[in-house]
């Protein structure tokens, strides 16, 4: 078990290093840097000096050396567009995305598992294909368009929820503790709903298949033959066994959720990593782009490792290996 963990973490480290190298290459091959469009009335020698400080005046290989050196010393770099260390920026923005991820993941699992069970129990019936059709409808939707439609709905037609930002800027400062919490939660609703709608179809589909697999197994058939009621069967026999594989999906859902968050954050003005990454790309702020891509890849890798571990815990055959 411990060896498995160690091996997967080591592999994860290799993947993260590769991600860093890939992003580095991608960004530095592109024309222009953070200073090539900087305030054009700054004297050229000042800009040259800055390029030197940020290691932008050297050949690509030397810049890569700079990058590795600073990474190795735990320094994520300095953001030119925000004028502060990248680490400080991540400390501000990453928790907001993780908060969004956490609630979205939680709710899409609750919704997905619920739908999957419903569909499997009524296999072939209206609840089955009806819920699958609706789920697939949202699954086939571009995230930005869904977000836009929610904006349209809640900004103009049913204006009951805030459509952007994290807080009520006007009244926020005078709120008491719990009022602030409620206000914050209200701002979370729409981004979270978008992400849940986008991801729960995949989870429901997985859950349904797992349920059907288990239903075909001998012990279920036996139980049914013995006259155990359908309710008891699905609760005690099927669901319990079908829940194990679904846990592993959690780790695999992360990349798509992180990707979806970029556009959802942009449309709802949720100042998280998606927003900061897009802004950093627009500003050619290499250090910030690389750091935020690195953070997403670390999240993805950790998600995968967690999925592996859960799977191993759930399945003794893997645990032994």
């Amino acid at each position, binding site marked *: 078990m411990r060896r498995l963990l160690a091996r997967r973490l080591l592999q994860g480290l290799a993947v993260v290093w590769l991600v860093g190298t890939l992003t580095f290459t991608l960004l530095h091959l592109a024309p*222009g840097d953070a200073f090539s469009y900087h305030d054009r009335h700054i004297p050229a020698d000042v800009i040259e000096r800055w390029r030197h400080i940020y290691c932008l005046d050297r050949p690509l290989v030397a810049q890569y050396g700079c990058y590795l050196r600073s990474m190795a010393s735990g320094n994520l770099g300095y953001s030119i567009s925000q*004028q502060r260390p990248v680490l400080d920026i991540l400390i501000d923005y990453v928790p907001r995305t993780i908060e969004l991820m956490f609630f979205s993941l939680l709710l899409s699992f609750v919704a997905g598992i619920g739908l999957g069970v419903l569909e499997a129990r009524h296999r072939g019936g209206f609840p089955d294909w009806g819920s699958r059709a609706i789920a697939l409808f949202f699954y086939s939707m571009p995230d930005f368009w869904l977000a836009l439609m929610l904006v349209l709905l809640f900004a103009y037609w049913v204006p009951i929820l805030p459509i952007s930002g994290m807080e009520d800027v006007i009244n926020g400062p005078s709120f008491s503790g719990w009022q602030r919490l409620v206000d914050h939660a209200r701002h979370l609703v729409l981004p979270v709903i978008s992400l849940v709608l986008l991801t729960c179809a995949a989870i429901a589909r997985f859950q349904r298949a797992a349920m059907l697999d288990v239903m075909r197994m001998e012990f279920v058939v036996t139980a049914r033959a013995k006259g155990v009621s359908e309710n008891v069967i699905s609760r005690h026999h099927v669901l319990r066994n079908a829940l194990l594989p679904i846990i592993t999906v959690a780790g695999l859902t992360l990349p798509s959720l992180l990707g979806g968050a970029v556009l959802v954050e942009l449309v709802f003005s949720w100042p998280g990593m998606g927003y900061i990454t897009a802004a950093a790309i627009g500003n050619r702020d290499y250090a910030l782009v690389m750091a935020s891509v690195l953070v997403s890849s670390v999240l993805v890798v950790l998600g995968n490792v967690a999925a592996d571990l859960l799977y191993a815990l759930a399945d003794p055959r893997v645990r032994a290996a």
Partner: protein
Amino acid sequence: MPYFPDNHMRLSRRVPALCALALSACSHDGTSSGAKHPTTLVFTQPSDADNLVPALSTSEIAAQVDAMLFEKLAEINDSMNVIGDAGARPSLADSWTWAPDSLSIAFHLDPKAHWSDGVPVRAPDVLYSFRVNKSKVVGSSLIPLLADVDSVTARDSVTPVIWFRARSLEQFYNAATQVRVLPAHLMASTADSALQSTPYGRNPVGSGPYKFVRWVSGSTIELVADSTFHRGRPKIDRLIWSITTNADAAMLRLLSGEANFLDKLRKQDVDQVAKHPELKIVGYPSMLAYYVLFNERGRKGVGQHPIFADREVRRALSMAVDRRGAVTTVYDAKTPLLLGPYTSNLASFDPNMIQLPYSPDSAIKLLESRGWVLGKDGVRHKGGASLEFPMLVPGSSSQRQQMAVMLQDMFKRVGARMTIEHVDFPTQQARKTAHDYDAAFDGMSLDPTPSGIRQEWSSTAAKAEGQSNTGHYMNPAFDATIDSAVATMDSKAAIALYHRAYAIIANDAPGIWLYEAPALAGMSVIVHPAAMRGDMWWVNLAQWTISDDATKSGTVAVAAGAH
């Protein structure tokens, strides 16, 4: 790219001026808001600030916040007169005296002025601020403006003296009304090179009418009125900048009432704001000039451009464009055409400038006389070259894209084939700086100085690496005229010289002058702005009021759908 920060927000030239308070209008207890109902003005902005230290920040939102936190020695008047100190108003300094030879000015600081931590503002603060802004290590965008400032000394604790190397009509503007005074007692202990990373930049202490409260990155910047401000408490209690990720979201905040002010309304915004009775639109003088820029050098700055090096071809292409028609279609009939590389709100503007006429026939004749013969493909050729070129168009504005499509059509009619290259703003800037383009749909945010034209269009600016004259326009006659205009101390003579220079450059057609973009702000009807200056509408924020008197004061007549 609507969902990327619009980098046009970045200031191209100068970190804008500090709030100046009209003394007469400012009574010490003059708050229209009682203590019972604290008034809040919420600006919404589609991008975050970078740093709140004035010498370091380049974002427009920081310029607005800084204008309320920090003061300059003096402020130019609302009509943007930059010549001498005519009309200049006291700010941190309550008075000043010129030396007889005009080579130094002694400023007398208001003894009541103090930092929000209680420490009084004194001459060492001024000395420190000028030093920081001239430092190449810090890299302030004021460096070129302060080139004529030789040194700053302190005659006594409240009398800093600025010494100049040379006299000019704009010396007062360049020095006294540009540098924001910083608190030396909090900053001077930090080395210049470490200034960017000091926590002070995210938690500033200033001497302005408002005090810093908080900055939640990516979300909110909040200021509160300083009731002990030396020129009287500002009228609105709280100022909040509410940050969104994109211009559409900013617009929605205005419409939904989550914010009550949005600057830089786009055409589509105007249509929507006009439909909301609780909102109004206020216009202010535009300093935004849009034009097509030709690259007269070859690609990457090598040799001569096969098409645009020829002045007559540039003139022909200019004459092929129905500017009035295009601008009227995209904006409206009232949107002024650009007559040259300056807008009508510049003091040196010449309303009688003679323009190249719109005449496709003359354009065709001119092109033929220069050897460009129409081919079977509808495009003109000369030798091996064909009259074909790509134009860089920033993807961030629907209006500019629309106009680019119309230009394409007009060029086609005289046998020139233009293709549109959509790029984002950083790419456009980078490619212009590297001279890696043929033509570009370009915009310029002007500052109020007539001499600014030298930085943009002179031969010196063309030759220097990384300078702004990326089109390589060079004409010795133009250079000489501008140089004498800058050198003279006689304002009338200067204006005449500027007019002559404008005529030269307009005739050379280094670009196709298109239009002055309308400068419009949308706001709640309860907001009553004081005079909004063209280069910095926020300069008089401390005089703005919010009251239940919901008249549409200051509203510009904008027909819905017309603008």
